[in-house]
């Protein structure tokens, strides 16, 4: 009987901590999808602001930069996942050459888009560069959100 009471007391004390830890892990595991949503959520209003403030060409350049940054971030995630599969010997175990080519392909995509925009409309290049910083802005938003969640929910 005494043992049962002791177990109940201990479990009641531990349960909130375990629940909180599980909630915290679930919260941080959703960070990458949240960053991608932040990227989408930031791109459209900022593109509207750029359109009103700087004109159509720079806004188009900004949107192309945002699209490249989004694809770049997605490919980066895939490359890191493939690398983790390779290291831990889980999943499909992709070839090393494929991982390296995917990693370098992101830079080729950026360089090709910058060259094409530079040839078509050099003024849009400023918009493209601004769009390429979209992941940084999204990471900053995520950092702010995590700080808010940590203060509010104690994660």
């Amino acid at each position, binding site marked *: 009987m005494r043992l049962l009471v002791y177990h109940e007391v201990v479990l009641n004390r531990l349960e909130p901590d375990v629940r909180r830890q599980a909630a915290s892990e679930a919260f*941080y*595991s959703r*960070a*990458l999808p949240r960053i991608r949503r932040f990227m989408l959520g930031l791109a459209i209003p900022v593109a509207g602001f750029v359109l009103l403030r700087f004109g159509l060409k720079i806004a188009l350049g900004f949107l192309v930069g945002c699209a490249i940054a989004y694809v770049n*971030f997605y490919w*980066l*995630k895939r490359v*890191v*996942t493939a*690398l*983790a599969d390779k*290291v*831990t010997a*889980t999943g499909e175990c992709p070839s090393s050459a494929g991982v390296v080519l995917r990693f370098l392909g992101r830079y080729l995509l950026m360089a090709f888009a910058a060259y094409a925009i530079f040839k078509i409309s*050099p003024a849009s*290049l400023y918009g493209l*560069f601004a769009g*390429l*910083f979209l*992941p*940084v802005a999204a*990471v900053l938003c995520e950092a702010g959100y995590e700080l808010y969640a940590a203060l509010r929910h104690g994660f």
Partner: protein
Amino acid sequence: MRRLSYLFMALSAMCLATPLYAQGGGGMSHADWVAITSGFAMAIASAVCGIGQAKATAASAEALARNPSARPGITLALILGLALIESLALYTLVIIFAKVA
């Protein structure tokens, strides 16, 4: 022998007289210096970012191999780290473009 030493001393003194070899009016302009320093700045930024990415990837691969159960946290940190390191090279590129163009 003494004459020979005088000759060598005179020749060495002439070698030190750098204005003798100075260029004419067509020196390097401001734009040339901007282009040269931009190239060096981009090269240094790319090299340092490459080193940073390599160190981050190596450390995370080692951490994954040691503790595969910590994979979600390690991959998240690696993705964010690589994205932010890349943005540093982009900052340099933007500054160079603003200065050169």
